[in-house]
């Protein structure tokens, strides 16, 4: 049916969607992201519904520190940009640049993760254990789930980089893979936008 792709001219302009397999993966992944939206929405709703339930434990205002969150936000936003740029390099068949930009993304992601772990450890020291209150549980669950996504995204990038460093170039098989990983990374960023707004800023900014 389908895998008749014209490859004589070099890498097609949208290599991630050049083959039927690529098209399928592309669409399938978007469907998945659509589903993720509502899953995260559920966790956001849970957090918003329970955030007043601090029981005897510390509350959001007592804990959260804006500068830390700001740094984390900047890291993640920048990594999103590098990931976008990596995709441009991919489309231009610029494998090296793509790998480097992806590596930068990974480094930024790791830094973000480091801060997040530091943050959690800090909160635990301040008496906000996972089981302390409904607020604590829903906070750790929501932000932790995002963190888990970051971890998964990083593993994905790293696997791809290791796997395809040998290939040494962009193919019609690995282009969709890099593209999807990048989409995933953007999605993580999108979720973070809401996390820093809804979880951190809204808790500190009163209401």
């Amino acid at each position: 049916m389908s895998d008749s792709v014209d490859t004589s001219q070099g890498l097609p302009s949208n290599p991630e969607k050049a083959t039927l397999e690529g098209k399928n993966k592309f669409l399938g992944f978007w469907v998945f992201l659509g589903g993720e939206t509502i899953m995260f929405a559920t966790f956001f709703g849970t957090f918003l519904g329970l955030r007043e339930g601090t029981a005897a434990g510390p509350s959001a205002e007592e804990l959260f520190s804006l500068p830390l969150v700001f740094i984390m936000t900047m890291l993640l936003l920048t990594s999103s940009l590098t990931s976008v740029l990596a995709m441009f390099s991919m489309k231009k068949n610029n494998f090296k640049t793509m790998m480097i930009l992806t590596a930068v993304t990974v480094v930024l992601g790791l830094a973000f993760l480091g801060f997040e772990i530091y943050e959690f450890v800090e909160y635990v020291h301040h008496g906000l254990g996972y089981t302390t209150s409904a607020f604590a549980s829903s906070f750790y669950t929501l932000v932790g789930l995002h963190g888990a996504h970051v971890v998964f995204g990083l593993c994905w990038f790293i696997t791809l980089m290791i796997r395809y460093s040998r290939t040494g170039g962009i193919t019609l098989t690995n282009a969709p893979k890099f593209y999807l990983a990048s989409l995933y990374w953007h999605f993580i960023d999108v979720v973070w936008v809401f996390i820093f707004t809804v979880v951190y800023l809204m808790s500190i900014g009163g209401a």
Partner: protein
Amino acid sequence: MNNNKSVLWDWLTTVDHKKLAVLYLMAGTLFFVKAGVMALFMRIQLMSAENDFLSGQTFNEFITMHGTIMLFLAATPLIFAFMNFAVPLQIGARDVAFPFINALGFWIFFFGGLLVSVSWFFGGAPDAGWTAYVPLSSGEYADLGLDFYVLGLQISGIGTLVSAINFIVTIINMRAPGMTMMRMPLFCWTGLVTSILIVFAFTPLAAGLALLMLDRIFGGQFFIPDSGGNAVLWQHIFWIFGHPEVYILVLPAFGIISEVIPAFSKKRLFGYTAMVFATLIIAFLSFMVWVHHMFTVGIGPITNSVFAIATMAIGVPTGIKIFNWLFTMWGGKITFNTAMLCASSFVPTFVLGGVTGVMLAMVPVDYLYHDTYFVVAHFHYIVVGGIVLGLLAGTYYWYPKMFGHKLNEKLGILMFWLFYVGFHLTFFIQHILGLIGMPRRVFTYLDGQGMETMNLVSTIGAFLMGAGVLVLVINVVYSAFTSERITVRDPWDARTLEWATTTPIPEYNFAQTPQVRSLDPWFYEKVHGDGLMKPAEPMDEIHMPNGSILPFMIGLGLFVWGFGMIMLNMENPIMPAPIVIGVGFVITFGSMLMRSIKEDHGYHIPLDKVKKIEKEVS
């Protein structure tokens, strides 16, 4: 393909959608019989007042498992069986979009189901109803059974989710040339919409189950008010999933009916466009009505009124469907065989269940109905009188294509009448039981409340239904030995593309992708063409995916992982839980890693082999 490998290996590694359909069919049937037998036990317990056949605890385990298995592990896979089998054929595709994911979906679902089922051997099944309302299902009030429920459903839900994504992409991307969206058979449409509903409904369920798991295993504080939690939270999350879930089940049944009725009325589906839009509207509305399960929670009159109106609104598009089916039959030339008996009787039966649904939507009156046998009657009228009848119709309709022979008609008609009469006996009377004050989920009722006779009748009906199912099982075995093989493409003189394939279907479905020129393309070619599909491409070698054991391994890995998680809550586990969790983790992610590292482009069937196969089958 691999003649040197064993049959078993072949089935474990298959990625062929037709074989997966059979696997789904078998798994679904097993679970259906299991849950059905549980229903019979429940009915025996309720046969007479103050009976002590089952204790309260056991009874609660039975209702929970009955409901859970029926909805998640019986109805869903049976629907997937037909979707897997028919959808790629109906859109003229060689295969689904992601054959590997398709197999993965099955195995994850299967192992998830297995995890729920083994709970009996570890101190009892879940016992908080299929809805698992907290706090009854939280760590404080429920035992290990609920852990099996939470993790088993979580895992099988992942399977269902990935299968749904596969169906969506298949239907959108893999249609044959000329098969526009508005020429797709209605079963494909409902399959598409159901899959979309799954994507958007199973994800909140996954979130909810994760919360419950965190609550039970890691001491999360989501639901217990003492630490700031809220018990209503779970109900919202559950029903945000739960209401779409019932349409997830019934829409494909609608689809089957929309295939079978035109086929045996010899008429095209009346109001095709309206049917498609009705499906879409139902799907949309189904996300806006969940509070109708929570009218008595006390959320407030505004909320209740809004959701009541939204709920009633669903009656309109559903009504459109009902009348379109009636008018498809109207003016047709109807043949009544078992498939058509089931399909046509679906229509009035579903209406009976649907109108009680609308009655339930009247909030103040629902204060009476809620959590009584009236509700039980409502949804069994739809799930048994609707979904099960639809699935039976589908079974008798597609059986010849799937297995190469028809089911025996005499036994079929016997099954139908046993089942149908039994069904009305069982469930009609439950409406009245509810009104005279019998709550649901009660393991017994006291003497002298006027409930004895009606319950007895209900039990007798259940046994008639059981007899009906038994006749079906006998029929399957009997027909396998006695029915003549089918060699024609189209034993029913039907209308859609799956009947354009040869019987048995070669693994690549269509040697040449067909060119579609109309709705009901096969019928169109029979009337306006030469009775065969026009090819859209020259005969060429055919690309096929390789089989793989990895889906099975990933499913197994998740099973082990889930079991390990449950072991965290066990008092004396045989071995430390973290080890089991780790092993499961390694199996799962190891397999996934292997999959992503090894590029697998499948193989090609050479042209002369295709020609040879084509000659053989036709």
